[in-house]
């Protein structure tokens, strides 16, 4: 009876610990069905980011299953009643070297394999774009608690009377490498478009050039990703990706609307 009770005790806690990796993997598998998942990637480099994410996920899952598995197995196996003593060992030198060297190599490989993507997204601006840091397509300006997109006037100036300013809605052409400057009026904000895998803090006092290329027409949420005050949660925006001609038409319409006589208001 005592043996049974002890067995049940061991089994109970083993199963409790086992539930974590089992349920853990299960929730990852079921999450898309629960609609708790990545939004669809619609940016050119988003695919690379996703691929790196999945590479790390698979590696990490393997390690997770092995280590948790061993933990659970050892817990169960070595908690049985046994009057003999535990294995008397203080370690194993070679084993230590092996399990230091192999992860070290793997981790360095992981680190170095990502540098190219990072450089492409954040360090360099694309050379084959019609826009550049000196002549960006637009400025995105964060303030408490609104995003504004500013498009230059016909001469390309961002100062002056004919600059187009739109709150909340940001229009960009599809399949174009868009370079823009990110600015902030007051405190730190962060420009985050989940569907583009794009994020950058907007720092007051800095103009930060960013780039992306949207690959699909549609409307995508923009959220502020750095605490900027009590209204941080409502600092929303929408990025509208339009076909090239529609974008041009929109911009032209905005320029004309500046000089409207107000009868449509």
């Amino acid at each position, binding site marked *: 009876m005592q043996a049974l009770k002890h067995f049940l005790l061991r089994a109970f806690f083993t199963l409790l610990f086992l539930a974590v990796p089992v349920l853990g993997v299960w929730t990852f598998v079921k*999450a898309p069905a629960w609609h708790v998942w990545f939004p669809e990637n619609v940016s050119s480099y988003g695919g*690379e980011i996703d691929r790196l*994410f999945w590479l790390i996920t698979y590696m*990490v899952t393997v390690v*997770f299953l092995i280590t948790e598995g061993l933990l659970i197995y050892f817990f169960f196996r070595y908690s049985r009643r046994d009057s003999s003593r535990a294995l008397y060992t203080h370690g194993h030198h070679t084993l230590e070297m092996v399990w230091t060297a192999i992860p070290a190599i793997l981790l360095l490989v*992981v680190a170095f394999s990502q540098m190219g993507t990072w450089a492409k997204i954040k360090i360099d601006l694309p050379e084959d774009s019609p826009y550049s840091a000196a002549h960006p397509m637009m400025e995105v300006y964060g303030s408490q608690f609104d995003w504004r997109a500013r498009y230059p006037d016909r001469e390309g100036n961002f100062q002056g009377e004919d600059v187009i300013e739109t709150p909340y809605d940001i229009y960009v052409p599809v399949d174009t490498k868009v370079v823009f400057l990110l600015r902030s009026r007051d405190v730190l904000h962060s420009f985050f478009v989940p569907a583009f895998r794009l994020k950058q803090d907007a720092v*007051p006092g800095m103009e930060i050039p960013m780039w992306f290329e949207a690959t699909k027409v549609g409307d995508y949420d923009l*959220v502020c990703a750095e605490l900027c005050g*009590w209204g941080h949660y409502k600092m929303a925006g929408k990025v509208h990706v339009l076909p090239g001609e529609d974008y041009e038409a929109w911009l032209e319409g905005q320029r004309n609307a500046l000089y409207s006589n107000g009868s449509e208001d």
Partner: protein
Amino acid sequence: MTTTALEAKPLGIDPPGTVHTHHEHHELGFIRKYIFSTDHKVIGLQFLFTGLVMLLFGGLMAMGIRWQLAFPWTEMPVLGKVLFPETGGVVTPEGYTMLFTMHGTLMVFFVIIPLLTGTFGNFLIPLMLGAPDMAFPRLNMLGYWFWWPGIFLILLSFGAEGGGPAAGWTSYPPLSTVASAAPGSLTGQNFWLLSLTFVGVSSMMGAVNYVTTIVKMRAPGMTFFRMPLSIWGLMIAALLQLFALPVLTAAGFMQLFDRVFHSGFFTPADTIVNSASPEAIGAAAGGHPLLWQHLFWFYSHPAVYILVIPAMGFVSDIISVHARKPIFGYKPMAYSMSAIAGLGFVVWGHHMFMSGMNPSVGLVFMTATIMIALPSAVKVFNWLGTLWGARIHINTAMLFACAFVAMFIIGGLSGIWMASTPPDIYIHDTYLIVAHFHYVVFAGSVMAIFGALHHWFPKMFGRMMNEKLGIIHFVGTFVFTNGVFYMMHQLGLAGLMRRTADPYAYEVYARLQPMNQFISYCAFGLLFWQIFFVINFFGSLFFGKRVGRNPWKACSLEWEAPSPPGHGNFDRQIVVHHGPYEYGVPGAPEDYVPQTQKLPSGVGAH
């Protein structure tokens, strides 16, 4: 003793291993014995009780956050009408920012660090080293009492004009420096800064004491590599505090000057906040917000290792005792804790990948951060090695310690995602980050604290905690903790941002409310479940089964002292012959050989 008085007492107190057989001191009154005590054990318990109360406050803040995320803009029960009367009990947007700021601040500075280093550091260090007290007992006492102005100020900040600080526990400027930027930045933020200064001073006093004690007051025969890993953990944490904390203190003063004297360290030129002109907010000088981030994270990243390294040490000790097996790879364990701490000084930029810092620097930080996974992995492997071939006794302490390992695996592995800069573009400031640090700090350190309390309770109070209640507490805490924080990984994958009072109006987050509700229910369950711990802990103080010196049959020195130890700790001469993990020694009469006993001949140990 025939040596002169000066040589006999180089530090002003008796050398380690001294036997106290006669009363040299007059009887102390109640105040000097229990309130302004210089006895490290009393101070340790003072940290414990105060820390547990602060844990309750921090937990209540978290409940407010979880309520708002589960049921935005509805009446919050219990606390709602108290905190937010003008809205009918509904969390206000500015109140929400205050809730998560205070939750983070309280938990990091007022709960985990005091409970890990303050409680166990104070209690265990002299005992495990065979010393009668700390190197500087009065400094120790001051260290505890300097914490109280910090507590007082942070609690007072709730009532400040504009409410409590609301710029996040990270307190980034200009949000935190400009009064018009956030309600909490009117005066609450000043209290925050002053409070943390006191907390920092208290920590520094403790850190100086710990390092000195460990270096100078080990019992004869106790070499560095014969110290329990708990001591290694505490020493490394103390060194981290010593080197990193001054940076935070300096940064805190810079921010205070920005706020009070408009010095403009962190406020860029031409910033206009909430219609306050640049001149009014000190923006004329032209500072840089990133300067704060560098200074803050230079401390706060080592700080997170302070939050976990002592816990790792305790877990090593607990596992070894209850698995009746030596720690597998003692030296690698000690070295890897040191490596984590050392590397921890050069990875602070991983909090700033998206901050506007030069992205090339990000590559360096990425590599260093990814490499920190290596010593952490080595530790996990060594814990597994300790369990292999063991004779595991299932009790509450062991369960919490094994749970620490299981949870730390998750927390540590999830860190690799965010260490990698391209994925971090998506992950930064989402719930994946929240999941990661809650796994390491809550599912890790707090579980280790619970385990350590169960394990060292007999030594602290001479009684055992109730195992039944302990197991009930463990099971519920384990289940609910995973329920709360595992799902946050999913939310992070969906891109859910942190610190967002009502995310569901965004199309991209519109379907996330059910999962948030599930998490909130688990969170309420988790808070409720701690009743079992409270009953067990306080009940056992008065009604727990009395035990002798060494109920766990453990090797390390603290179990040589009476339970609880009296003034001066040990009642016999302490000489150390070997390391603290001699369990299952072949040829020994019992399955453990205390550090003060020699090993059987033929058995070599360091």
